[in-house]
């Protein structure tokens, strides 16, 4: 099948992850992965982002498919159940707002900047080597650390399920995918 420009967006996703190791402020670019799918689903009522432009999905597809890093087994039933998918979306939301709260505390001067990336919402990895100061408020850097934590955590989870199950198993429980599908369902319920 003929390759299109958007079939190479995995390079963008990979570059994003790498940049976070050099300068954490690049993490802000990750907001595109949040806003673009939401805008596409809200305006056009489709999952065009998942279907075409998701570089992360492509990266898992490539590593698990062409590079053979996946067992290619069926995902367990509970992981594709609505209960788990919606539950994970809610959990992700709570953790996201907690991250926003920490950012707010730094902006408000109630908390110092913490130069750590929190993996799997638990493990605090020192990440000071990717921070070289900012002309902006330290709160902007705190958001970058927090957002990169979200992105790295979801990548790690995606890689684990890629190895255990099918390459794009992450797509089954991806909170953005679940949210955009809910938007599409609401928008197209009359049809």
């Amino acid at each position: 099948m003929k390759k299109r420009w958007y079939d190479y967006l995995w390079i963008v996703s990979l570059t994003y992850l790498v940049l976070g190791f050099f300068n954490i402020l690049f993490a802000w670019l990750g907001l595109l992965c949040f806003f673009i799918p939401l805008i596409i689903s809200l305006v056009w009522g489709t999952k065009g982002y998942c279907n075409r432009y998701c570089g992360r999905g492509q990266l898992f597809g490539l590593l698990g498919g062409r590079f053979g890093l996946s067992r290619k087994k069926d995902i367990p039933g509970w992981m594709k159940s609505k209960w788990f998918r919606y539950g994970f979306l809610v959990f992700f939301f709570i953790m996201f707002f907690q991250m926003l709260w920490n950012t707010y505390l730094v902006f408000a001067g109630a908390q110092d900047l913490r130069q750590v990336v929190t993996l799997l919402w638990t493990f605090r990895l020192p990440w000071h080597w990717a921070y070289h100061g900012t002309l902006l408020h330290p709160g902007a850097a705190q958001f970058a650390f927090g957002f990169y934590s979200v992105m790295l955590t979801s990548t790690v989870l995606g890689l684990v399920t890629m190895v255990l199950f099918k390459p794009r198993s992450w797509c089954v429980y991806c909170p953005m995918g679940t949210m955009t599908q809910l938007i599409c369902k609401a928008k197209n319920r009359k049809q």
Partner: protein
Amino acid sequence: MEARKKRRAVVDGSACVACGCCVKVCPLSAIRIWHGVRAEVNGERCVGCGRCAKECPASVIEIQEVPV
């Protein structure tokens, strides 16, 4: 006389996550994502090759024999 049967992909729409992995691998463009909600098979085009079923991360596509 036995009815003619054809192999084709059948999607469990209620469990489909509409990721579009199936669309990417279909050699006959016989499957599409209906309004970001679920995958939909074009019965006329589908020959039941099973590529979509193999690719589907949620394993919600089955190849079934259906009467023509």
